[in-house]
């Protein structure tokens, strides 16, 4: 067993926390205690070797910290109460609390950024400093966000149990959304690739715990298929390469194979959810040998289905691209026109980028639309790409 210490700690973190919370309640105090135990292990184990029962070691150390903390607290409130902790069984009880922890961290009472931060710390086992670094915010800001999130969980009185049957699906959707958010934070940023790996790792854990859930499998597939393009999506100078210009030989074949197999199995199970459809779309792109070989009719059909199960203007925007590619730019532009009155999307840079793309396909002037998209994006590499397209578009349309 030569699993690196850091990986081992990340894997054990939610299990140790789960045991403590189940025994003592007090998610906030337990979470602090587990972080301290992880820190102690990270310092000690590389020097002195990993203890034979790493799991038991962590539980013992974390329990001791928790006892100290609760004792100090009782002393503060002048209660004559001794906190007694029973000895920890040496072996893992074969019960995995990771999912319950995820439900707690993605509790609906928390804001999106708080769900993300708490999930990465309590389930991912990342330190506050690591999370702060990943999101480019000061450590003090992230520490506040996490302690506020823990206070909200405490106040909401959420017990440490899986959600009731009737709200299970909805709560699971919130968990998947948080995992996808973490993935996208990492994927769209060139400097935060660690987050994609962490999102994939956590989604694998959920998939292992809920192997028959098609949406979980599909989210994992979607992440793998998307991340497979990473080596091809930027040039060495940091500029972005659009999908149709990417060197497909750079794509990660292994990730594509795993993702495609997951999609295939997920599509066979139950009614089609939004992640299954998005993963299926990603698979069609991944399996095209070249941009010209892309089966746009298939993609269009999938977007039509996606719009039916999860209508939102961003999906319609993507359908306009697919429509333009499958049936000609004019059809895409007509669909786009129906979105003009929808202010959830009509002010978004993607709206103008899609418009520019379709106009160019139609052989019409696209410079203004590219420039409008460039003005509206807050991404530096996107702005650079869109400005370049605007420039080359005006060169081409010059008489």
């Amino acid at each position, binding site marked *: 067993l030569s699993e690196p210490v850091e990986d081992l700690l990340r894997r054990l973190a939610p299990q140790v926390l789960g045991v403590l919370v189940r025994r003592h309640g007090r998610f906030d105090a337990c979470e602090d205690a587990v972080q301290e135990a992880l820190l102690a292990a990270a310092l000690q184990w590389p020097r002195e070797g990993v203890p034979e029962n790493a799991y038991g070691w962590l539980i013992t150390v974390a329990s001791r910290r928790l006892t100290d903390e609760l004792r100090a607290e009782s002393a503060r409130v002048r209660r004559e109460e001794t906190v007694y902790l029973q000895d920890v069984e040496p072996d893992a009880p074969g019960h995995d609390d990771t999912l319950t922890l995820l439900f707690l961290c993605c509790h609906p009472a928390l804001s999106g950024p708080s769900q993300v931060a708490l999930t990465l710390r309590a389930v991912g086992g990342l330190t506050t400093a690591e999370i702060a670094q990943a999101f480019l*915010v000061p450590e*003090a800001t992230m520490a506040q966000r996490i302690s506020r999130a823990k206070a909200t969980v405490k106040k909401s009185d959420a017990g440490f149990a899986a959600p009731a049957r009737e709200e299970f699906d909805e709560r699971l959707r919130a968990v998947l959304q948080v995992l996808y958010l973490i993935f996208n934070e990492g994927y769209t*940023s060139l*400097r935060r690739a660690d987050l994609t790996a962490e999102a994939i790792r956590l989604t694998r854990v959920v998939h292992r715990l809920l192997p028959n859930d098609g949406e979980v499998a599909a989210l994992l597939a979607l992440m793998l298929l998307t991340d497979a393009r990473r080596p091809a999506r930027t040039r060495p100078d940091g500029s*972005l390469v659009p999908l149709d210009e990417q060197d497909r030989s750079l794509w990660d074949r292994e990730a594509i194979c795993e993702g495609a197999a997951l999609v295939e199995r997920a599509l066979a199970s139950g009614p089609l959810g939004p992640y299954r459809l998005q993963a299926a779309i990603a698979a069609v792109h991944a399996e095209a040998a070249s941009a010209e070989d892309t089966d746009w009719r298939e993609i269009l059909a999938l977007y039509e289905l996606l719009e039916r199960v999860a209508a939102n203007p961003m999906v319609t925007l993507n359908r306009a691209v697919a429509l333009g590619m499958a049936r000609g730019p004019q059809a895409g532009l007509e669909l786009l026109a129906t979105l003009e009155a929808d202010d959830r999307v009509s002010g978004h840079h993607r709206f103008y980028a899609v418009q520019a793309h379709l106009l160019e396909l139609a052989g019409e002037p696209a410079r203004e639309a590219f420039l409008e998209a460039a003005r509206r994006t807050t*991404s530096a*590499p*996107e702005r650079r790409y869109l400005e370049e397209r605007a420039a080359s578009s005006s060169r081409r349309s010059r008489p």
Partner: protein
Amino acid sequence: MLLIYNNPDAMTSLPKDELDGIFGTVDAIMSELRERGELLGGQALAHPSQTKTVRMIDGAIATTDGPFVEAKEQFAGTLLVDVEDEARAVEIARRWPDASYGAMEVRAIMDDGGEV
């Protein structure tokens, strides 16, 4: 990023209790931002008279005293926040005292991420 504009000389002539009220509001907003984990930073700027402007004049880079634009309302500082959406940033700007005395500008920050 919230850009704060005000008239630096008008502020000093306000009565004491009005000034105390302004500082009280600022303190309250700052601790709220800190407590919610939204505050990334910020900087108050010295009086605009303590400004050098550097720019090209007649083909040479020249340094002159005073701000670039002679205006009643001057750039007075920044407040950097990480909030859930634009509406929350605008809400903070509306409550900030300089919205009543000068003006606040809410600007999005560029990042290095992206997808084309």
